[in-house]
């Protein structure tokens, strides 16, 4: 396999173990692997998004939330949440005969942020999921991506209920006009797929601009 020529370069296939009983086997003709990271605050729907788009049984490292997290992991707005990711989510989508996309979902809480660096390593770009009930949870992700120059798009996960206009969300996040912002329902495969497509288009546009 080889990396793409785009900048930042696409990754080699990750070392993470791919689940064995894939619904769709990886074609032997695969030559190119692209890695995308999904980040954002606690409880915003990152694991759900990876699950929605993955064609294989996703690796997920969700653990039951314990009473030790009372007062640490704020469930405001997501009172029904019972489990939380403690390492990362891993899913895969075969794009065509030669290209495959690996999607890595990061854990949201501050105590797991040290894991993000490895998840970003070699990534083509990132998706920042935001929830308008807890917008401030996404500031760290956006700041970090801007600081390290990783291309990203922001997806407002509204669970099918639009509560704020995208303009309002953009203003509240103080998001640069050049960063794509779109609405999605992380539970819906098609909706989640559109987010990944938006990211790939954004990265392509950046590369095209840069080579002019």
């Amino acid at each position: 396999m080889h990396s793409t020529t785009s900048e930042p370069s696409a990754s080699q296939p990750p070392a993470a173990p791919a689940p064995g009983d894939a619904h769709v086997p990886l074609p032997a003709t695969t030559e190119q692997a692209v890695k995308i990271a999904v980040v954002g605050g606690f409880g915003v729907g990152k694991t759900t998004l990876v699950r929605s788009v993955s064609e294989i049984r996703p690796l997920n490292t969700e653990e039951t939330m314990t009473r030790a997290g009372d007062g640490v992991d704020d469930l405001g707005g997501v009172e029904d949440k019972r489990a939380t990711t403690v390492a990362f989510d891993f899913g895969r989508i075969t794009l065509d005969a030669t290209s495959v996309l690996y999607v890595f979902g990061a854990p949201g809480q501050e105590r797991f942020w040290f894991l993000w660096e490895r998840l970003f390593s070699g990534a083509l770009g990132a998706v920042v999921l935001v929830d308008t009930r807890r917008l401030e949870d996404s500031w760290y992700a956006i700041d970090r991506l801007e600081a390290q120059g990783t291309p990203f798009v922001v997806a407002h996960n509204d669970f099918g209920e639009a509560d704020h206009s995208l303009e309002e969300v953009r203003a509240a996040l103080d998001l640069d006009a050049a960063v794509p912002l779109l609405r999605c329902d992380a539970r819906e495969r098609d909706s989640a797929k559109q987010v990944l497509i938006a990211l790939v288009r954004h990265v392509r546009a950046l590369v095209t601009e840069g080579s002019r």
Partner: protein
Amino acid sequence: MNLDTLTWLLEGLLERTPGTRHALVLSRDGLKLCHSSGLRADSADHLAAIAAGVQSLAHSASVEFGDGAGGVRQAMAEFYGGLLFIVEAGHGAHLAVITSDEAEPGLVGHNMNELVEQMGEHLTTPPRTVAGPA
């Protein structure tokens, strides 16, 4: 069993196991419950998050490649300057131990499991049931 007793038990583990440096009990979602006195609070927070991630990945490995019993007996990492051991410790909790290079892995594992038996059911870290107000 209160936290002081648990901490005292952790100190005892370090004392009778050559090469051990730190011991920590954590919840499965990555929060420290108690730890030996030599471990700074920041390092304890970090180790709790690391150990929860490692145990969760080890569990995924057991599901994928294990015999179906679905359990992780022990997760271990050997790095330059030391080793990390993690075992399950009661329902919803894990015990993590950091040692120097000189530690004897068999003895460390044995003593950790012995300690888990002593702690027994006292280590239960129950799931959150009713979500509290923000």
